[in-house]
């Protein structure tokens, strides 16, 4: 039995890497525009070569994000239709039950820990948050990029609404990533300091046992391992 399991294929790793890079650049070029009165915003914009350069970097990164979202969806739909993969990201009833059980566990109301499949409810939440966020931020971003063309298709009143949505959705995304994603992928004691699986594509079997037992069982054609009986790590690891 191998110690490692391939969790992410090359395309998924590349998609994550592109999202990560453009997201950082988008925050770096977008936030100073939102907080334009702050001193740091002016220092940052000047460092990036002025507001015009800042906006071009932002637009190019935005278009890259839009393109990668389209490619991601095209691939996902194709893969699902050709039945190569299951609907592993689709939220199910189990996710809601898992979330409740997980919270009960955190609160110490139960010693039973949810048994997760390929993606747990937190990962699905973040994924769909990103997808819906992208839809809002890309469509509003395009309206702001081409305001006169947008006015041909939508009422002019929607342009400032798009600006409001873009600016706040950007802040929401920034906060979600800095609080939630940084915690789950870096500061979470289970993975601290760095969950490398999205870069290497590999995850240890040990982690699979604890974090994705249902998927592991399916992969290995057996019944889910009872994590609570797994022993060695006891309850200590069962917090993720």
């Amino acid at each position, binding site marked *: 039995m191998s110690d490692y399991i391939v969790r992410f294929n090359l395309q998924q790793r590349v998609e994550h890497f592109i999202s990560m890079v453009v997201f950082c650049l988008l925050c770096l070029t977008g936030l100073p*525009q939102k907080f*334009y*009165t702050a001193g740091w915003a*002016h220092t940052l*914009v000047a460092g990036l070569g*002025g*507001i*015009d350069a*800042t906006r071009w970097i932002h637009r190019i990164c935005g278009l890259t994000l839009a393109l990668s979202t389209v490619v991601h969806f095209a691939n996902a739909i194709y893969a699902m239709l050709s039945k190569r993969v299951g609907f592993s990201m689709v939220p199910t009833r189990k996710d809601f039950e898992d979330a409740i059980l997980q*919270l009960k*566990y*955190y*609160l*110490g109301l139960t010693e039973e820990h949810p048994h997760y499949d390929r993606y747990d409810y937190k990962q699905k939440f973040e994924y769909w948050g990103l997808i819906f966020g992208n839809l809002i931020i890309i469509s509003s971003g395009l309206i*702001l990029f081409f*305001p*006169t*063309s947008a*006015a*041909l298709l939508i*009422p*002019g*009143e*929607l*342009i*400032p*609404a798009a*600006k*409001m*949505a873009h600016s*706040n*959705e950007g*802040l*929401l995304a920034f*906060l*979600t990533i800095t*609080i*939630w994603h940084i*915690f789950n992928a870096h500061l*979470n*004691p289970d993975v601290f300091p760095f969950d490398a699986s999205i870069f290497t594509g590999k995850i240890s079997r040990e982690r699979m046992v604890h974090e994705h037992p249902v998927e592991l069982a399916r992969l290995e054609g057996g019944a889910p391992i009872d994590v609570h009986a797994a022993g060695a790590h006891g*309850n*200590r690891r*069962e*917090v993720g």
Partner: protein
Amino acid sequence: MTKTGLAILLAGIASTAWAGIPAEQEDCLGCHTDPAQTFDLPSGEKLSLFVDQEAFAKSVHGEALRCTECHADKTSDHATGELKFKTRREVTKAYYEQCKGCHFANYTKTLDGVHFAVMAKGNDKAALCVDCHGAHDISHPAQPRTRISKMCARCHAKEAEVYANSVHGRAAETSPDVPVCTDCHRAHDTTDPRDGALARRTPEICGRCHGDEKLMARYGLSTKVIDTYLADFHGMAASFQKGKKSGPGVRLAAVCTDCHGVHDIQKPTDPQSTVMAANLQKTCQKCHPDANASFPKAWLSHYEPTPQKAPIVWGVLLFYKILIPFMMGGLVLQIALHLWRVVVNR
């Protein structure tokens, strides 16, 4: 001292005011008394040698200066019939340096001004101290304030005429609040408006009055115009473009004057106004050539988003004002619970 006594004393001072000015301590005024007295310059111009003693006595310098304090090189035996100047303008230019001795700060400012820059490039007509202030008849420039605009109009007639018909120009005669030329362009370090640097500063320049609660209350005008402008796409971009100069290939965000006009600013309710609803599409098209009739509605007309003025924008803002704290609160709470359980398990 009684009131009558004070009045007599003041009358006495007033009546002797120009009889005993310092300039009389020198011999100059003995000769320079004839209005017809002139000197023929090589250019063919006649240089008047007449000094209107009464006008000089009433001027700001009347009580303070003797003739040779400005005309330093002149002595009582200077009437040799020789002058180094070829033209009338050369005489004026020669005296540019004379004011510096006392008015050093303002003199230094002029060196940064557009008039000095233009003169340095060889334009003899560019304004020097005396062109604006006068020579022997210098009085306080802002009495009355409208005198300033009239003075600029002597050279800038076209601009002055447009200004006179604007909302500011029309009110200038009766209101002490409206701007005259120097309020925006400055007096000594007058900015060259052509490179766009002055325009970049209009949110601040216009804001000095239009952000002043007390002043605007007198006219029933909103002081939110500056903040609402800055919060919008143009204002935010403009605040990052401070100090940037216009030129080929440089796109600068619209500032106050790009929409409202410069010298021709009118009330937004005036049919001539560039920002009147009916004229707005044309104004937008100056920068956005493809702007259709719906495009100007993208601008909230300096209103803050409220359910009445901009319900959609207001709704979106409200949505995020609730969603962001709710979402972040939930995530932070879950992280806190998670870490708490980690600690408990240990």
